[in-house]
């Protein structure tokens, strides 16, 4: 226990970094997900192909391989970002593919009649997407999106492997100093569970408030 209390500031910084990374990447991945899902249902074949390729590539590559490629290999062709930014970009791009698929599943739940009605009153592709399809489609997949956010939270720990000092890395460092693995790692595990619980609660709340009961 003392191992935890005497290193509260390190662990706290790690926790804050994890939360920051999670929030930033969730927002980024959500935006990317909406864009890619839109590409995948666009009337233009080329755009659909780009959307499909994006999802295929980023769902089938290991996140750690992408992180390593981005952080260690891209600098050799002169592309360098601060470490936190790199990790945030890669995780957002990676999770964006999963969110795009979830959002597309949501769009598929919207009745064809809704889209036809939207076109019949003269809405364009973008307008019917923005005002009719997405508001209904997104509400249908709040729970899956929440699950992806929890997976994203767990995936932020991979940033540790390329040197970002977030919660997992902080726990590891403190353990190397204190040699109290049980206390330190259990503490970190509990913190992750707490964060996942919060995401779960928020999704549950959103679901109850927003979901359309058909």
């Amino acid at each position, binding site marked *: 226990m003392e191992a935890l209390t005497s290193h509260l500031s390190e662990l706290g910084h790690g926790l804050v970094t994890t939360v920051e990374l999670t929030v930033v990447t969730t927002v980024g991945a959500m935006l990317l997900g909406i864009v890619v899902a839109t590409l995948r249902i666009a009337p233009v074949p080329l755009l659909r192909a780009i959307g499909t390729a994006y999802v295929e590539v980023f769902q089938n590559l*290991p996140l750690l391989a992408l992180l390593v490629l981005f952080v260690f290999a891209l600098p050799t062709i002169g592309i360098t970002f601060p470490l936190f930014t790199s990790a945030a970009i890669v995780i957002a791009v990676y999770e964006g593919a999963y969110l795009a698929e979830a959002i597309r599943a949501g769009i598929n739940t919207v009745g064809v009649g809704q889209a036809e009605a939207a076109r019949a009153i003269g809405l364009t592709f973008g307008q019917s997407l923005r005002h009719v399809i997405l508001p209904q489609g997104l509400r249908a997949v709040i729970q899956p999106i929440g699950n992806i956010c929890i997976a994203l939270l767990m995936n932020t720990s991979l940033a540790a492997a390329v040197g970002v000092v977030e919660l997992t890395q902080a726990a590891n460092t403190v353990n190397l100093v204190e040699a109290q693995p049980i206390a330190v790692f259990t503490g970190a595990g509990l913190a992750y569970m707490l964060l996942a619980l919060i995401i779960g609660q928020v999704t549950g709340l959103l679901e109850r408030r927003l979901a359309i009961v058909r």
Partner: protein
Amino acid sequence: MNKTQQILFDEPGPRAQRRIRIATVLGAILLAGAVVAAVYQFASHGELAAARWEPFTTWPIWRYLLNGLWATVRAAAATAVLSAALGLLLALGRLSTHRPLRWLAGAYVEIFRTVPTLLLIYVTLFALPQYGLNFPLFWKLVVPLVVSNSAAFAEIFRSGILALDRGQTEAGLAVGLRRGQVMALVVLPQALLQLAPSLVSQLVGLLKDTSLGFVVSYTELLYSGQVLSSYTHLLIQTFLVVALIYLVVNASLSKFARVLQARNGRFGGRRGRRTAELPPPLLEGNTPR
């Protein structure tokens, strides 16, 4: 084009066709721009030079990378078998009629679904050896992967079992089978068939997880790439090739999952199955084998 893609637009008329052409040209220009920018970045740092790519046409380099891939496959196979077995036990535990069993399995799944695998790897790397549990390298990667993946498998199995029509269980009990027999003879065979696509998808996730061997220094594919690049100093080339190998393997697996999904839709759907599995009519001379 299938129905789902066509929700948002009709058959394009002349004006829409013109717009689609314009969007195609703009998209192509943007794409070409991105490719040109990438090539320029590579070229301006001398990374396009033939000498920096040529090693990847030689057998020793490929043999090394393929050895890495083989280690990845071995780790993935061990993880898959162990975590599927453990996951099935956990799912049965969660659905059991004994409360303590249900509670234990539930706690396990809820805990390890929300703890990052990397944290578990650090535990096996740095914590367990202090208590005399020093696994060989292979198991240092596989054990934490099994611990976290079995929780994921348990949820897949549980959802599949719960999704099956209750009538199946009730009918099994009604003809006098015990609960275990109903599960083994009636519920599981049907649930597993339905779950085949999800299980294959989980396999892709698990294969990606083995890249954590990078942290353990187990020479699977990603860590092989790291080792190779530290000798050859061909960083970006090596990791691009490694990424390509992952992409080919995992995309084939994903494709396989989609094929299974499509086949389930045709043969395994509730309606299709009922007709398909009716026993052959008992005609004269039609004796069982």
